[in-house]
């Protein structure tokens, strides 16, 4: 389980990006989790809830959106979703595929609550 170190990386990013809004509360965080990212959404949520205590995101909820593995065949140009981790072109059976999505683990966006006085 390396989700805790991934979440530590997430909090580094949040700290950097929320820096200009010091004092503001982070209320939601959205992650895109590729099926081939090697991370498990449920464990990311557990790690997030452990890690957030005492941070700017203490009350934030983590939303994870699973991203399927999509590829493009370099031989025939077909684009398709990889099923059962078979990396062969479903149209022409070629094996030279470009991965378009599904390996990422991306902080999409987060939402802040900013005090009225600002």
């Amino acid at each position: 389980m390396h989700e805790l170190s991934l979440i530590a990386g997430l909090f580094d990013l949040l700290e950097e990006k929320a820096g200009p809004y010091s004092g503001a509360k982070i209320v939601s965080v959205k992650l895109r989790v590729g099926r081939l990212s090697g991370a498990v959404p449920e464990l990311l949520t557990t790690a997030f809830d452990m890690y957030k205590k005492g941070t700017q995101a203490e009350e934030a909820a983590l939303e994870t959106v699973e991203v399927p593995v999509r590829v493009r065949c370099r031989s025939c140009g077909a684009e398709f979703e990889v099923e059962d981790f078979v990396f062969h072109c479903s149209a022409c059976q070629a094996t030279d595929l470009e991965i378009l999505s599904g390996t990422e683990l991306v902080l999409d966006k987060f939402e802040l609550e900013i005090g009225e006085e600002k």
Partner: protein
Amino acid sequence: MKRKEVEVLEDLLSSNARAAAELKRRLLERGVLAVNLMSSPGAGKTTLLERLAERLAPRFRLAVIEGDIETERDAERIRAKGIPAWQIQTGGACHLEAKMIGRLWPELPAELDFLFIENVGNLVCPAGYDLGESLRCLLLSTPEGDDKPKKYPKAFQTAHCLILSKTDLLAHLPFDPERARKEALEVNPRLEIFSVSALTGAGLEDFVTFLLHQRQKLISPHA
């Protein structure tokens, strides 16, 4: 209270990716073939390295970085072969990260042909972390079973080569090398697959030849 949305679109592993790219640049500059060895615990990574040390050390300059949660044992085994070795004790972490290798960089010999990095025994977590290697090598030992590629797709999908290890045990196990090979190639059609017994030495020569060829490609890519 008003709400503000901040779009980021940055990968959580981007700081590791930057550290890995910097390491890779330095390794290529020095003409070092870096090999990241991954497998479950006990698949035979250290024993394979001992055999490689015997085969390569007379002609090439080798160094080894060992990753383990605790103990210095693996580095000691490699040093016993006369190869400089560094042990990273992760203290609980289930994988190596590029910055851990980066911290060791100043200590590595300036003149080097091969750097072997033995990752923490684990088929899941290490696969997510680029260490700046040119070659990612996965070991699957015959006692583990031939059904692993689909169970651990990330490790198999990101590897360059697969070593089916402990082949000397095949006669005693239900392991079907053809099934393992077929499934691994479904997950990753570009995989180079080797069958090796570090105990008897069977198949070792093919893998050594492959390593030498990979290093040759690295130092003279247009030859």
